[in-house]
């Protein structure tokens, strides 16, 4: 039994047959080069099917599993018996079986149809991929691109250059507000939405003029900036330190670098300043130098800032043992009642609790320290504050006593002045009553100053220029010791005075009771602070903009400084600026 493969060539019109005899029991069909029936059609598997001869004239069609279905007489077939006249359709090819007694003719006819209308239609109708679905990435892309470019760039720029009145009428999302990079500081809220209030020129950094327009009174860092500029130290733009869009108080920089950029190298860069380099409060910061009184070589008392050291002494010209006065059991007042004193008994805040009011005699000392001088005249006290006044008062007193006819003895009776620890024997004065009165007054004046009254608290020195020949060295009281830094006592109340000022143990008024840097460091770390210490950067104690008086208060600007505030208000664009922060 042999297969005769009969290729029907050239479609209907030019039809010729090519026969090929194939011996063997199997006829292979597929796209593979080595198939008996080679069908070059992508719809056909490389090895698609086989026709096998079983016992004589029985034929079986075997279709490969993964192969696309074969049609046997138009119906899909997974294989099976074949009989004469059966037609197999694989892809675009029909294979007809013609069985004769000695041979099987297998007519292979390629049904090569040109794309017909139906197919064209079907394909035209079919949309088999997202591309074909008509939705275009490109279109969407451009739409989004356009919208964002419009809202994000074109409108903001455009609106900015519109005449002001028109620009105002443009609602928020279509203005340059969309460029706002972050919340404006509280101080500047009032004009938060007027970008051009600060950004004067496009593509130019915010100039200082934008700031000084309002902050006209703002002093420089140092009185004479030129020397700094000479040293190549530009103070930089206002906005260099005062960043905006950084939150409510983001525009005041606490960062040490703000100062240390210059002060870290100021010794080299600006020797004239005589300053040492400072980079960190703990690591690199000079000793405190309180202002204290000192007697210089020529014996003149003068103020000098003196590097702090333990038991630092000054020439205070005062006799005031803190320890005695702060005796917890109290000290007797003139009536002998014990009074318990504490710091606040004498030291009273002033100026926003940064510094203290000076301690004065009348309010603070007089309760205990009486200036009576004549037992016969209780309540009669000498004046405080001027030695001339004291002398005048005594002259007057004794002149009247003489006129009233009191005798010398009466005046000098033990009940009298002499009674109280008189040291010098007083010779009985002679002469006219005026002379007597004069000499008694002088005697007692000297006695009062040198021994009985003034010398208790004051330094009393002989002074021929004075009538009494003695004088009280004046005592200037100090309220601010550290003039370059701001120390806000109110924030330190919790710690108690003693923790910084060793008053309880101070026996002399010459003790400088100002704390040293070390005691600050108990709580205040350097720039980074640390585990249990407060991060303390420069501006915590030091201000930047120099203020002539009260530098220790730093610069805290007030509405008054902001010359423009009024104008802003009057513009009526916004509510007036809130109270400045200090």
């Amino acid at each position: 039994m042999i297969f005769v493969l009969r290729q029907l060539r050239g479609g209907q019109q030019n039809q010729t047959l090519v026969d090929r005899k194939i011996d063997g029991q199997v006829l292979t069909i597929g796209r593979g080069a080595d198939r008996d029936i080679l069908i070059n059609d992508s719809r056909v598997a490389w090895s698609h099917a086989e026709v096998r001869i079983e016992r004589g004239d029985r034929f079986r069609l075997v279709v490969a599993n993964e192969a696309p279905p074969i049609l046997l007489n138009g119906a899909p077939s997974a294989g099976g018996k074949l009989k004469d006249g059966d037609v197999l359709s694989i892809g675009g090819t029909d294979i007809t079986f013609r069985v004769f007694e000695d041979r099987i003719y297998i007519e292979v006819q390629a049904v090569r149809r040109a794309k017909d209308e139906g197919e064209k239609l079907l394909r035209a109708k079919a949309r088999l991929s997202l591309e074909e679905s008509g939705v275009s990435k490109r279109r969407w892309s451009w739409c989004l691109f356009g919208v964002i470019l419009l809202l994000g760039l074109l409108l903001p720029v455009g609106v900015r250059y519109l005449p002001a009145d028109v620009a105002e009428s443009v609602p928020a999302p279509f203005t340059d507000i969309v460029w706002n990079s972050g919340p404006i500081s509280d101080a500047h809220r009032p004009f938060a939405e007027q970008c051009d209030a600060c950004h004067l020129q496009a593509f130019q950094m915010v100039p200082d003029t934008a700031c000084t327009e309002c902050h006209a009174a703002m002093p420089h860092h140092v009185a004479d900036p030129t020397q700094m500029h000479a040293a190549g130290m530009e103070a930089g733009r206002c906005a260099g330190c005062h960043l905006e869009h950084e939150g409510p108080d983001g525009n005041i920089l606490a960062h040490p670098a703000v100062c240390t950029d210059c002060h870290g190298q100021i010794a080299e860069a600006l020797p004239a300043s005589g300053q040492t380099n400072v980079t960190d409060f703990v690591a690199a910061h000079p000793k405190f130098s309180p202002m204290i009184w000192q007697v210089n070589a020529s014996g003149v008392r003068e103020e000098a800032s003196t590097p702090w050291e333990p038991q630092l002494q000054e020439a205070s010209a005062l006799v005031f043992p803190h320890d005695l006065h702060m005796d917890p059991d109290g000290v007797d007042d003139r009536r002998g009642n014990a009074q318990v004193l504490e710091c606040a008994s004498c030291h009273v805040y002033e100026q926003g609790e940064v510094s203290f009011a000076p301690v004065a005699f009348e309010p603070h000392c007089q309760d205990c320290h009486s200036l009576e001088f004549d037992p016969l005249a209780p309540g009669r006290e000498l004046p405080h504050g001027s030695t001339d006044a004291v002398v005048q008062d005594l002259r007057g007193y004794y002149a009247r006593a003489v006129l009233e006819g009191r005798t010398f003895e009466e005046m000098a009776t033990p009940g009298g002045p002499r009674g109280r620890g008189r040291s010098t024997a007083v010779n009985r004065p002679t002469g006219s009553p005026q002379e007597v009165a004069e000499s008694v007054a002088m005697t007692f004046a000297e006695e009062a100053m040198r021994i009985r009254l003034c010398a208790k608290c004051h330094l009393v020195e002989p002074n021929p220029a004075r009538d009494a020949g003695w004088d009280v060295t004046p005592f200037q009281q100090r309220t601010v010791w550290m003039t370059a830094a701001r120390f806000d006592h109110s924030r330190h109340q919790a710690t108690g005075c003693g923790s910084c000022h060793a008053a309880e143990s101070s026996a002399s008024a010459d003790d400088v009771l100002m704390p040293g840097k070390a005691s600050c460091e108990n709580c205040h770390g350097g720039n980074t602070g640390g585990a249990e210490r407060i991060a303390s950067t420069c501006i915590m104690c030091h201000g930047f903009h120099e203020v002539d008086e009260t530098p220790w208060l730093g610069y805290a600007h007030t509405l008054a400084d902001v010359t423009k505030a009024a104008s802003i208000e009057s513009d009526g664009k916004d509510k007036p600026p809130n109270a400045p922060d200090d």
Partner: protein
Amino acid sequence: MSLHESFLTHARGRWIYRAAVLCLIAVGLYVWQDPKAGPNGGTWLGYGLGSVGLLLIVWLALLGARKRSYASRLGTVKGWTSAHVWLGLSLVVVGTLHTGFEFGLNIHTLAWVLMMLVIASGLWGVLVYRRFPSLITERRGNLPVEDIVREIADMDRQLLVTAAELGKDTHERTLQSIQRTQLGGGFWQQVRGVSERAGDGLMSRLRDELNKPVMAAADPQMQSRAGADGNATMMFVASAFVSGEQNARERETRRKLLDLFSRKKALVASLNADVTRRARMSLWLYLHVPLTLALLASLLAHVVSVFFYW
């Protein structure tokens, strides 16, 4: 190493390392730096990261062009894709550090959001590309789509021929159903899955009908029901088929017709399923690309505005 090396691990993961290094450098600098006003886009690092990010984004966007300049010898597209993916991911770090974590309702944050969205969609793309190719391969035969269409067209042809033998109205019905045949569909239809008119449900129902011929033939509202759904023709053929009074040859033809129908439906269904799978595989691009353009626009606005109001 596999001969087929995925773009993810291109050149033994060269770009994974490079992207990682980039991120580490960025994070390192970010941690190390200590700007006066705290980290933000305006510090030197901010400008640095910003520029790097911008350049990266522009370069990444150029993949579309490189992919299509086929004659280009500038590295292989695979290499580019690999770099695209990994450097793109590294933007999450670079871009976010550039912001200094200062976000707000403004064009600048919009740019960041868009960037993250683009990256997210890209990530989705990568996942899809790992999953779907095999899926598509599993589900479909070796037939090119165009050939399936050709096959369906052939079937339509056969259907009409066969139907013609069964008289005018059968032919008309067949014609109608052929005209109703839907291959693929609109965007969402493709993505959601083209509604297949020939469900198995129908075939089983059909078989039931065949089993109880009399009723099926008689039952008028079955006709109407058939008329209602897209399978009117098959129901019609079926009902006529079971109504009994016709000769063997006609029976045979009808059986053949039904058979053709079911095969066609199956083919159409599988084609549509394939269309859907391919649609879902490429869906992400319809986000990725437009978002990228949006990103570019917002970046333009961002950069200009930043220096416009310096």
